[in-house]
């Protein structure tokens, strides 16, 4: 076999087109006769709609249609519940999902109330001003705890309360841990909302062709197949009449997952009404309200320990902000609940959550997806315990790690993939040691920090661990075809948003077929080219689709060898695939190109043997029995400016283990990008809602995304503990970078301000907030 491409830092197949500005993004789709759509959105977070006066908007020149909820008739339905509740023992669940257009009442600022369709986007937006909605403002439910008080306003009146769900999961018996403990720590932790802020906003082009009876939709979605199936059902069309294309997508990070966003549902319907193609492109302000968000949780956590730092158990009771509607069921709180346990042995665990409806934008998974909160709580509890027990934060982690011989390790509770939370493999201490070495831990603590503190500098160090459940089911599929040209084409259903699937999937296939990865053409995200699949989420693309590719490519390889063996009159074991040819090992003269074989595999005349499948092609599916568990350690040194409280990250280290690596270049990019988002979430980004549920900072001027001046260079290394669950041994990596960063900031700041006993219990922070916390801590110290 020629040089292996799997595992190599191969540059990406998709880049030349992107670099030249010739890649198709949704807003680049131009169709003849296309109309443009604008949405009238509520400024109020909570209000009853008394009446809507269209103000003659319909009659204006250039306006094709104006719709409100009443115009939708039977089509007006709440969206589907996308994830049913998992089989968790104690569960109370009250699903409420988003509606296409608000009827009777609006439940969050930015909720769509009316739609205008016009000849241009400019005209459509003009007409929004003519429409008058008479609202009766209602008090808004903003704070999570207030939401549960009696007499509080109700987001969904028919419920009689603001509870979306309550669930308890346990492992062992928490009471025993508490009884046996030498030390019990209780703390409250806050995590607040941010937004994914992909640089490309959402967009949809929908086009109904009456002659062919075909609906084509270009959609910035991470799950085109699910969207096709759902829309076909809603519109009463056959799935074969609907084609959903997720073209190049300018960043997804979760919120572009299948949502059946009101805009998706409405454009698909309206193009059928009007018989003309329609386009809607979200603007940045809309993105702050109408695209989903994540991360509001409040945890009351208790940890029981022995004097030597052994963790006996944890009890955690938390509130989760679901926003106004909760189409993702319990995915997020369950993810927080499971991820909290981390790489540690926690014998007794009691976790109880209440998911709460608020008058804020809808919450669905955003990179990390509930995991940040769990990691933050766990890592903070360990830090605080270490401080109280007088042991160092490294030893307490080491002491409690699950050991390599304990895998597979069951945590007994149910994970978001509905299976019992079981870690497939892991080896945590070597990653910790490597991180300590790379960050220069001993040198910093012993020499660097004291020397700099002596001259009045504020510097701190931190090291945290995390695990990430990745690569969950149900399944993905792939079709691999050798073409007459000798090139290989691969189709799969997952969408791609910059993860490099065009290349990493090509690498998986290339080795099996014996061609260069650049000769493998990957098609993703077009429902006409691959029918089945679930979508890109939960760091699952490489694991689930990657293994389907591998299976299909292996089958094609077998076909090639069988055919070539007959042609070349050689035993299959004596053949090898090199550079697009099959040859007798070491005898390049006796060979045939795979392109020729592909032509022969598709005969135009004569008879074939019964049972023969035409073509050098195979389609395979892969469904993991459960997810694979990736892990890692991040370490950081930061300096705080004592005047401005601005931070400088002097060094950032990531040592991660996501099993076998397909393409280290792409993996590094995923890690670095994840860390950058984590840094944003930890110290720059926060959505500020006022007491009326209005968002105070809905622009990139006021919501600060980290820039090249804020994000440091990241030193990374990886460990490879292959997953025993799948043939490639891969685990997902898409979210790992972002997960532990909040916990890392907190520990480093505590360390920098340990003289005044700072204890950070919230994320996100900001220079202002840090100043307040430091001031409070010094006041407490002096009191």
């Amino acid at each position, binding site marked *: 076999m020629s040089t292996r491409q799997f595992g190599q830092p191969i540059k990406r197949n998709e*880049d030349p087109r992107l670099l030249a500005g010739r890649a198709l993004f949704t807003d680049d789709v131009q169709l003849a006769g296309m109309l443009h759509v604008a949405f009238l959105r509520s400024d109020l977070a909570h209000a009853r709609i008394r009446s809507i006066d269209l103000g003659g908007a319909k009659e204006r020149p250039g306006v094709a249609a104006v719709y409100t909820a009443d115009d939708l008739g039977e089509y007006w339905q709440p969206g589907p519940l996308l994830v049913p509740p998992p089989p968790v023992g104690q569960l109370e669940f009250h699903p409420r999902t988003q509606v296409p257009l608000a009827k009777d009442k609006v439940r969050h600022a930015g909720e769509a109330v009316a739609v205008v369709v016009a000849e241009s986007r400019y005209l459509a937006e003009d007409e929004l001003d003519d429409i008058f909605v008479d609202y009766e403002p209602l008090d808004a439910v903003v704070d999570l705890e207030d939401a549960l008080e009696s007499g509080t306003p109700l987001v969904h009146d028919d419920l009689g309360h603001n509870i979306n769900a309550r669930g308890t999961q346990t492992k062992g018996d928490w009471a025993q841990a508490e009884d046996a403990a030498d030390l019990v720590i209780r703390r409250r932790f806050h995590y607040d909302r941010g937004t994914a802020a992909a640089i490309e906003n959402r967009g949809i082009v929908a086009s109904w062709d009456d002659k062919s009876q075909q609906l084509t939709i270009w959609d910035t979605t991470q799950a085109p197949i699910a969207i096709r199936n759902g829309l076909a059902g809603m519109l009463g069309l056959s799935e074969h009449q609907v084609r959903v294309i997720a073209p190049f997508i300018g960043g997804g990070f979760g919120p572009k997952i299948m949502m059946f966003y009101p805009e998706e549902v409405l454009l698909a319907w309206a193009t059928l009404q009007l018989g003309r193609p329609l386009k809607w492109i979200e603007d940045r302000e809309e993105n702050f309200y109408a695209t989903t968000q994540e991360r509001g949780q409040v945890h009351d956590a208790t940890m029981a320990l022995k004097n030597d730092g052994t963790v006996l158990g944890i009890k955690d009771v938390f509130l989760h902000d679901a926003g106004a509607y909760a189409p993702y069921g319990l995915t997020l709180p369950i993810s927080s609940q499971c991820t909290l346990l981390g790489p540690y042995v926690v014998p007794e665990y009691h976790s109880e959550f209440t998911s709460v409806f608020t008058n804020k934008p809808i919450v669905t998974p955003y990179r990390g997806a509930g995991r940040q909160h769990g990691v933050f709580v766990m890592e903070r509890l360990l830090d605080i315990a270490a401080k109280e027990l007088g042991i160092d934060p490294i030893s307490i982690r080491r002491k409690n790690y699950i050991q390599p011989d304990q895998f597979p390790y069951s945590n007994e509770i149910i994970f978001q993939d509905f299976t019992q939370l079981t870690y497939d493999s892991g080896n945590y201490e070597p990653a910790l040691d490597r991180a300590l070495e790379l960050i220069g831990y001993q040198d910093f603590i012993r020499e660097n920090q004291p020397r700099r503190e002596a001259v009045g500098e504020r510097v701190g160090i931190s090291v945290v661990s995390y695990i990430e459940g990745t690569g969950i089911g149900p399944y993905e599929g792939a079709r691999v075809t050798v073409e007459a040209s000798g090139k290989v084409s691969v189709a799969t259903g997952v969408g791609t948003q910059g993860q490099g699937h065009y290349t990493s999937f090509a690498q998986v296939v290339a080795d099996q077929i014996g061609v260069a990865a650049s000769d493998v053409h990957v098609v993703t995200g077009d429902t006409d080219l691959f029918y089945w699949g679930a979508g890109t989420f939960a760091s699952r693309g490489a694991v689930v689709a990657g293994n389907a590719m591998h299976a299909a490519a292996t089958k094609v390889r077998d076909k090639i060898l069988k055919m070539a063996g007959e042609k070349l009159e050689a035993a299959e074991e004596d053949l090898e695939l090199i550079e697009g040819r099959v040859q007798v090992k070491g005898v390049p003269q006796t060979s045939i190109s795979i392109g020729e074989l592909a032509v022969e595999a598709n005969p135009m005349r004569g008879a074939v043997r019964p049972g023969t499948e035409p073509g050098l092609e195979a389609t395979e599916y892969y469904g993991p029995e459960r997810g694979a568990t990736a892990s890692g350690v991040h370490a950081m040194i930061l300096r705080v400016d004592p005047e401005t409280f601005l931070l400088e990250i002097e060094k950032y280290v990531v040592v991660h283990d996501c099993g076998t690596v397909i393409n280290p270049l792409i993996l590094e990019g995923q890690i670095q990008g994840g860390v950058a988002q984590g840094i944003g979430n930890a110290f720059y980004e926060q959505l500020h809602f006022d007491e009326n549920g209005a968002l105070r900072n809905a622009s990139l001027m006021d919501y600060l995304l980290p820039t*090249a001046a804020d994000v440091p260079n990241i030193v990374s290394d990886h460990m490879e503990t292959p997953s025993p669950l799948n043939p490639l041994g891969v685990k997902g990596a898409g979210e790992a970078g972002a997960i532990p960063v909040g916990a890392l900031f907190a520990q480093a700041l505590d360390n920098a301000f340990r003289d005044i006993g700072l204890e950070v219990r919230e994320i996100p922070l900001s220079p202002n907030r840090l100043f307040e916390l430091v001031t409070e801590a010094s006041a407490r110290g002096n009191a």
Partner: protein
Amino acid sequence: MDQTISVRVNDRSYDRSVEPRLLLSDFLRHELELTGTHVGCEHGVCGACTVLLDGVAVRSCLLFAVQADGRDVSTVEGLDGGTQALHPIQHGFWERHGLQCGFCTPGILMSLVPFLQENPNPTEEEIRDLLSGNICRCTGYQKIVEAVQLGARLIQEKSA
């Protein structure tokens, strides 16, 4: 009232009649179908829409098309100078994995063209300073910095 404008874009003249309020970004993207210029915020922060106006990097979402009347605009589509080959800066990005989703990339490339002309040998700090005017949500910037360093080298090698 529509206004007639004449704009040279990537060395080709276009005469069009446009609404005075039409943004330059929309004009390029939707009137001329040069969709390589992207739009991420339409309020001048993200830099995705950066193009060159008479050689100077500008945010096309903050300008009206009529302001480009009689002037020269360069967009990412013109970076190859009509050769269909990648520009050395683009090569730098390809080699060093300076892009993921690629949505921010055209704006970054266009910001870099005049920067590297003036500053053929930039330090990392200068590069980061320049890049801080463009937001990339995918890469964490590190590989973009490396891409720019390589791109600068490739430009020099080419002109050497």
